[in-house]
């Protein structure tokens, strides 16, 4: 099963390598990993999407907790939480499809962040389903390039599953 794990870590060099090294060294999957500074710049916040059975996920969270630079590990999958991902898609539609691209972007509350004679670059934010749905719709239009941030996740306040 897929799990989304958030980490509060020391904002030091080498921390990312400790964490990615832990995953590769013990043969765990990383589907996505995103990292950024916390409000307090001494710390960083990480979101890792991984998969495995319950025993593997238990080992992953324990092993992460064991790292000296990791302060807090939360498997948010177990709680009510919000997940978001941002994608930038560069599409090169045929002239007669340009309007449809813009229309779909509007429906998905996407934004056109760059355009040229032959292309649009669209920014889409949402959960996985929404992002995947939009990518699916853009495929026949001709996707030239696509970049994803990986997921970030946060717990909902006051709501525990």
């Amino acid at each position, binding site marked *: 099963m897929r799990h989304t794990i958030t980490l509060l*870590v*020391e904002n030091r*060099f*080498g921390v990312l*390598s*400790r964490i990615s*090294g*832990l995953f590769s*060294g013990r043969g765990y999957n990383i589907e996505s990993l995103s990292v950024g500074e916390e409000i307090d710049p001494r710390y960083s916040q990480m979101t890792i999407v991984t998969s495995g059975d319950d*025993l593997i996920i*238990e*080992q992953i969270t*324990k*092993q992460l*907790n*064991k*790292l*000296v*630079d*990791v*302060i*807090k590990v939360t498997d948010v999958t177990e709680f009510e939480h919000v997940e978001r991902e941002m994608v930038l898609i560069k599409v090169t539609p045929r002239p007669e499809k340009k309007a449809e691209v813009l229309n779909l972007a509007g429906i998905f509350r996407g934004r056109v962040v760059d355009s040229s004679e032959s292309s649009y670059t669209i920014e889409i934010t949402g959960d996985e389903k929404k992002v995947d749905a939009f990518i699916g719709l853009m495929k026949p239009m001709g996707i030239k390039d696509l970049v994803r941030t990986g997921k970030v996740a946060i717990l909902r306040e006051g709501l525990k599953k």
Partner: protein
Amino acid sequence: MKQLTGSEILIECLKKEGVKHIFGYPGGVVLNIFDFLYDDKDIKLILTRHEQGAVHAADGYARATGKPGVVLVTSGPGATNTVTGIATASMDSVPLVVITGQVPTMLIGNDAFQEADIVGITRPCTKHNYLVKDVNELAVVIKEAFHIAVSGRPGPVLIDLPKDVTAGKTDFVWPEKIQLAGYKPRYEGNKWMINQAAHMIEKSRKPVIVAGGGVIISGAHKELRELAEHAQIPVTTTLMGIGCFPGTNRLCLGMPGMHGTYYANKAIQESDLLIALGMRFDDRVTGKTDSFAPNASIIHIDIDPTSIRKNVRVDIPIVGDVRKVLTALNKMIKTEPSSKAQWQEIRKAWLKQIDAWKRERPLTYTRSDEVIKPQAVVEKIYELTRGDAIITTEVGQNQMWAAQFYKYDKPRTFISSGGLGTMGFGFPAAIGVQLAFPDKLVIDIAGDGSIQMNIQELATAVLNRLPVKVAILNNGYLGMVRQWQELFYGERYSHTALDVVPDFVKVAESYGAVGLRASKPSEVEDVLREGLFKVKKTVFMDFAVDWREKVYPMVPAGAPIDHMLFEEQEARQEKKKGLRAVK
């Protein structure tokens, strides 16, 4: 305030941590530090002949004393040579602080002379590591490093010190306190869980304690003995746990697992409750995990949460220090049934069964008057020392025989590379042990393969007048691998015959040590008496042993632990094949 250089701060901090000995090797980027050690009165640097030897020596020192071992080496090859030693310590939870020099900060990343990213290289085999980029951080880093190395589940910590940091000056402030937001080991076990464990022990009819290295590290041998003797529970000790429960005690089952005793493995497989203390269910202990202790509930007490439910299912997980948890557990168990006699009554049938297994298949081998049996050498060492020695081992057959045929009654008297299985560990480790205990008899039980992996440390032993005794069980082979080839690879002895083995007597003599040799069984005792007691110097005792001898019992890798091979089966097969019976 007087400003100190990084090198002086390092040495001051080591003194504050109570360090008396450093094991090390100099080099370009650590010259500043070595310069301050030149006339230091309080700290003695033991110069080994290879950096790996330095780490193993520090490791032996740490295992024998419980205090952290300290290593100081240079950058690049000096640092990379420590990796095997660090990984060895990491697998066996040994507290070390390894200080490596590094090229100046402004050169890091430039592929400078003798530059290696040792922090990157050792990340997976240290408990934690540091690159110090600013001399102002140095004192805090050292304090943290020692704290992390010795607390919780101990382990090696590496500090990488660029040359400019060793020369940089700052005010020296010894931090009285440190704060590590992400590091808070749990010592006290969960009360409710301990209570549950007590109930389970009271209900069980066929319990077994499996005691590991954690019992020794936490100093829980007394508490273990109290539990075992009061509630009449048999104890099997893993390779790392040897000595945490007296080998001569009636309740002791010896070692479990691949080369464990018949009765330890039988007891585990038949038990209804396994009490695992400070051990991690290594594959050499469990064999096939699906068929491990099939009828038992498992109580697992360990300070490292990742050890729990990693390899086997657990019914009562207790994260905590073994000693603290056992202290609490013993209090609960004492209440009911209140007397030892009652427990003896309850356990009568189970202990009778275990005694029957012990009689059925004791640890044994076929004795000989013609050729020296390696097991006989180990037995003789035990007999002559009466168990009053600290034994280190190399890895392979020598290690297993040292575990099987010598009885250890005290913790920290059997010192061996368990997890990583590092050949070449025993001799430098013995040097570290001897340094910590100058008056103790320290014996490395070695093989002719392993001893050659760090044989250069003869110089270290001789130079420091350390009377380490090395008993080489010389069979001309990498015996354990040869054994697998014989049993599982159709006797195809691919590259396990050493062919050229040096004359160990001459090697010893050339370094200024004493060399002795026994070629026949009748010479064994004389050589041992001479080497262990008469000679007050470093000694190599070379025993030409039966090369066909194998370690039994043996559980083939991946088989359930009660599927054991025994010596007599081998003899039967030899007969079937029409060959001369070996035994």
